[in-house]
C-alpha cells in the first residue's frame, strides 16, 4: 500500500473513531431538518394563498421566493463548511507534533510530504462528503418540497467545496508551525478578512458608480484582499451562478456592484496548491 494511501486511510479512520463523523452527521441532519420544516411551511402557505402568488409575480414569481430561501440556507451551509474545514484538520499536525505521536510515524520509511499529502487527501474526502451532504441536502429538499431547483447546482457545489479546500490548506499549513489556538485564530481571521474585503469592494463599486473617487481605492483594497484569501469570491461566484429573482436578499448582499468571473476557480485551485506545497515544505523543514 502506498504511504499516502495509508495516511489517508488513517485520517478517515480517526475521524470515524473520534466520533467526528457522527457529530457532523447529527449537525447536518439538524440543519437540513430545520430547512425542511421552514421551506415546507412557506410552500404550503404559498399554495393556499392566490393573492400572495400574484404579489410574488412582481419579484419574479414563486420560484424567486424559493430561490431566496434556498440561497439563505446555502449561505448558512457555506459558513458551516468553512468552520468544518478550519476546525477538523486544525490539530492534526500541531497536536501530533506536540504530543510526539508523529515521531513513531515519521521515522518509518516514508517521506514527510507523504504524511502531509495523505492527511490533506483524507480531509478533502471528508469535506467532499460534508459538502455533498449539506449543500446537496439543501438542493434536494428544495426540489422535493417545491419542485424547483436553483440553476447550476453542480457549479455551486464545486465552488463551495473549493472554498472548503482552501481553508483545509490554510489549516494544514498553520498546523505545521502554529499552536492549535493560533491556527484557529488565523483560519477564522482570514475568513473574516475576506468577508469584510468583499464588502469594501462592493461599497467601493457603488461609490464609483456615483462618481466618487474614493470608491476606486476601496474597490482596489477589496480586490487585494480577495487575492490574499479567495474564499469570499468563490462564494460570490456561487451566488452569481445560482441566485435568481429581483429581490433576493443573499444576491443583493453579495453581488452589489461586481461579479467574480469563472477564473476564480483556477485561482482558488492554484492558491490551495501553493498553500499545500508550503505546508509540505514547512513540515519537511521542522524538527519533530
Amino acid at each position, binding site marked *: 500500500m502506498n504511504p499516502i494511501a*495509508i495516511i489517508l486511510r488513517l485520517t478517515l479512520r480517526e475521524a470515524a473513531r473520534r466520533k467526528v463523523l457522527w457529530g457532523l452527521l447529527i449537525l447536518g441532519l439538524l440543519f437540513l431538518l430545520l430547512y425542511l420544516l421552514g421551506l415546507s411551511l412557506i410552500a404550503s402557505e404559498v399554495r393556499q394563498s392566490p393573492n400572495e402568488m400574484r404579489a410574488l409575480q412582481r419579484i419574479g414569481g414563486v420560484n424567486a421566493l424559493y430561490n431566496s430561501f434556498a440561497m439563505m440556507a446555502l449561505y448558512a451551509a457555506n459558513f458551516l463548511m468553512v468552520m468544518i474545514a478550519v476546525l477538523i484538520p486544525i490539530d492534526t499536525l500541531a497536536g501530533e507534533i506536540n504530543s510526539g505521536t508523529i515521531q513513531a*510515524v515519521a*521515522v518509518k*520509511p516514508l517521506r514527510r510530504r507523504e504524511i502531509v499529502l495523505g492527511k490533506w487527501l483524507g480531509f478533502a474526502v471528508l469535506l467532499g462528503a460534508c459538502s455533498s451532504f449539506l449543500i446537496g441536502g439543501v438542493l434536494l429538499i428544495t426540489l422535493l418540497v417545491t419542485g424547483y431547483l436553483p440553476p447550476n447546482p453542480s457549479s455551486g457545489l464545486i465552488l463551495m467545496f473549493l472554498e472548503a479546500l482552501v481553508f483545509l490548506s490554510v489549516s494544514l499549513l498553520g498546523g505545521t508551525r502554529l499552536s492549535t489556538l493560533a491556527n484557529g485564530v488565523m483560519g477564522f481571521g482570514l475568513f473574516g478578512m475576506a468577508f469584510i474585503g468583499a464588502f469594501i469592494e462592493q461599497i467601493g463599486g457603488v461609490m464609483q458608480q456615483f462618481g466618487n473617487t474614493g470608491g476606486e481605492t476601496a474597490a482596489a483594497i477589496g480586490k487585494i484582499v480577495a487575492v490574499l484569501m479567495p474564499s469570499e469570491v468563490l462564494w460570490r461566484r456561487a451566488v452569481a451562478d445560482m441566485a435568481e429573482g429581483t429581490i433576493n436578499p443573499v444576491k443583493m448582499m453579495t453581488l452589489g456592484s461586481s461579479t467574480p468571473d469563472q477564473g476564480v476557480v483556477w485561482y482558488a485551485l492554484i492558491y490551495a496548491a501553493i498553500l499545500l506545497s508550503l505546508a509540505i515544505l514547512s513540515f519537511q523543514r521542522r524538527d519533530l
Partner: protein
Amino acid sequence: MSPSYTIETSHLRKEYSRKVAVADLDLQVGQGEVFGFLGPNGAGKTTSIKMLLGLAKPTSGEARLLGQPIGDPQSRSRVGFLPEHFRFHDWLNGAEFLNLHARLYGLAESARQQRVPALLKRVGLEEHANKKLRGYSKGMLQRIGLAQALLNRPAVVFLDEPTSGLDPIGRILVRDVIRELRAEGTTVFLNSHLLSEVEITCDRVVFIKQGAVIKTITLKEIEQGATPVQIRIGAAKIDRATLALGLGQFGTEARVDSDCIHLTVADQQKLPDLVRWLIGQGLDLYELKPQRVSLEEMFLQIVGMDGGL
C-alpha cells in the same frame, strides 16, 4: 567514513536558537553491538537520536546510518525506534496499531499476519490485542511501543529509555528482548538512566555531557581493571608484616587488620591464585569480596556530581 559501522557520526552538532543541544558528537557503533548511550539530563541524548533518525536536522557535521546519509527514508526501513514518551494514536487497538506501523514499514499482508500476533505474544499483550491503546497502562504502552520497533526485523533498534515505565517483570522482558536481538546480530542503541540495566545488557557505553562524548568504556574493561579486594580472615596466625610483604606479589596497597586484608589486584584473574596462596599460609578464609566499581559510580566520577539540568 568507513561503511562498516552501523552508526557513525562525525562532529555532529545541533543548535537551537538559544542553546547548543549537541556540541560535537563523534560515535562509531559496530554491527551487532549493544551500545549504551549515557549522560545526565539535558546532555543531548534524545536530540542525538532524533538527528540519527531524521527527526531533527543537524546544524553541522555528518552522520551515517546503515551506510546511508541520515534522513534517507530507504535506510529507515531497516530501523526500529521506541520513542521516549511513547505517545501513539490511542484510538487504535493494539493489533490495529501494530498493523498500521507494519504497513508503514511496507510489510506485505502475509508478513503482517505472521508478525503482528507473534510480537503481541512476545511482549505479553496478546490478551489486550483488541483493547484501545487509550486504556493501556504506561507499561503496556511501552511494551506495544517495543513491539512496534521490532515489526520489520530491524538491523538497528533505537530504544530511548525503554524501561522507564516498566515494572520489574517488564524490565526483564526488555532485557531478554535485547539479548535476543544481540543473538540475531541486531545493533541496539540504548539510551537509559537505569545504569544497572545498562551494565547488564550493554557491550559498550559512552558517556556524553553537553553534547560531546567524554568517555567510552567497553564493559568487560570494568571487570578487567584494577579492583580493590576485601578479604575477611580468622585472627592472623602469622606476622602481619610478613603477610603484607607476601601479598605484594598479587597486588598493591596491601594492608592487614586484625581480621581483614585490603588489597588492590591489577587483574581479577589473579584472585584464584591469591586464595590458594592465603590458604597455603594456614589462614582461615571467611569472605573474599572484590569491590567492583559500578557503572553508577563511574557515571558520577566521569560526569560529575553536578550532573544535568
